[in-house]
Each structure stands twice: as structure tokens, then as C-alpha cells.
């Protein structure tokens, strides 16, 4: 079965650079969530989109932005990167009216030097 696809899997950037992460949800899933997980930490909710509209917002820095496109894929844009942004970034998807579980991708590991 198709899963959530994230790219790139690994990314190394310098401070103050910009990074873009992509997420392709499971087909027919209408909701995408972004989570950030620091080393040894629990996943922290950043932002979510339902039917291409922002549905909820968590602890996402102002330097970050995201959107969901017409084909339901989503992109997380991160600018003015800081050392503290180094983390695993997960995308998850679900569909309204489903079982309530989230399906996670394998994550994108961002390292800021």
C-alpha cells in the first residue's frame, strides 16, 4: 500500500540558509500534518492543512511557512535557519471520516551547521 512520502530524507544546511521539505500524502487523504522532533524529544505539532486550507497551527516559528497544493502534497519552507532547527521533520496524513489515526512518513532529517 502507498505510504506518506517525504523528501529529502536528509538535508544539511548552514545557518541563515533556507530549506524546503516536501510531503506527498497517501492517495485520497485530505489532511496533512507537520511535526518537528528534536533529539530524544516527543514530536511537536507545527501546522496542518485540510483540503488545502490551514486547519490548525502549533508551535511553528514565524520563519517557517507551509502550504498544501491542489494535488494535496505539502511543502514546509524554513528560512533563516538556526542551529536549533536541527531535527527530524515528520509529515503525516489522514482523511476526514477515517479511523482517526495518522499515517507518518519516514521523516526528513535536517542538520543545520
Amino acid at each position: 500500500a502507498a505510504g506518506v512520502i517525504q523528501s529529502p530524507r536528509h538535508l544539511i544546511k548552514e545557518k541563515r540558509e533556507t530549506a524546503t521539505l516536501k510531503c506527498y500524502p497517501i492517495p485520497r487523504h485530505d489532511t496533512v500534518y507537520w511535526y518537528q522532533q528534536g533529539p530524544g524529544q516527543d514530536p511537536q505539532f507545527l501546522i496542518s492543512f485540510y483540503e488545502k486550507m490551514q486547519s490548525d497551527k502549533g508551535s511553528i516559528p514565524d520563519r517557517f511557512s507551509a502550504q498544501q497544493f491542489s494535488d494535496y502534497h505539502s511543502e514546509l519552507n524554513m528560512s533563516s535557519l538556526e542551529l536549533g532547527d536541527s531535527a527530524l521533520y515528520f509529515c503525516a496524513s489522514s482523511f476526514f471520516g477515517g479511523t482517526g489515526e495518522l499515517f507518518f512518513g519516514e521523516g526528513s532529517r535536517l542538520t543545520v551547521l
Partner: protein
Amino acid sequence: SQQGEEDPQALSIQEGENATMNCSYKTSINNLQWYRQNSGRGLVHLILIRSNEREKHSGRLRVTLDTSKKSSSLLITASRAADTASYFCATRRGSNFGNEKLTFGTGTRLTIIP
């Protein structure tokens, strides 16, 4: 974590033994879910229990929910080396069929010793 706190934070047991992990949360919820994460990998859904349920089973997994104490426990019976992973509880406040975010607890790192 702002919502779930898990206990213990780390647990090591011998293969074949049972492992119990606990989770507490602070706000009212609609459902509570458990996820597993192998090191550096994505989270995998294990089991979901709704707020009007008290116990649920799935294979070697048993989950309980006590909404009066705002706590849940995950029991893994007859543990295997492949069960070595971090386990997170996550809560959802909204509708069971909605698309509200999940709020994760701090996780328990389980190590099964062969």
C-alpha cells in the same frame, strides 16, 4: 510535553517478559492512541482507544484508559527483540472522525534484552 507524560521514560526487560508503559494527560480527550517509533524512523500507529472505552486488545497489545485519572497504559505481552523501540501516547481532543492534530507525550524507550 504539554499534554502527555509517560512513565517510565526508559524500560529494559528480558525477552518473553511483559512490558507496561503508562501515559498521563491533562485535558479532556476524545481518543488516545499509541504509536511506536524505531530509532530515527517514522511513527507507526499501534492502537486507538476512544474516551468511552476502558480496554482494548490487539494481538499482544492491551490498552486501558481511565478518563477519571486521565491516564492510559499499554501492555505488551511476551515481548520480542523486535519490540525494541520508543512508544508514544498521543491524544486527540476533537471528533473521532475529524482531522484534529494529535498531541504526543514524551515517550518510553523500551529495550528488549535477548
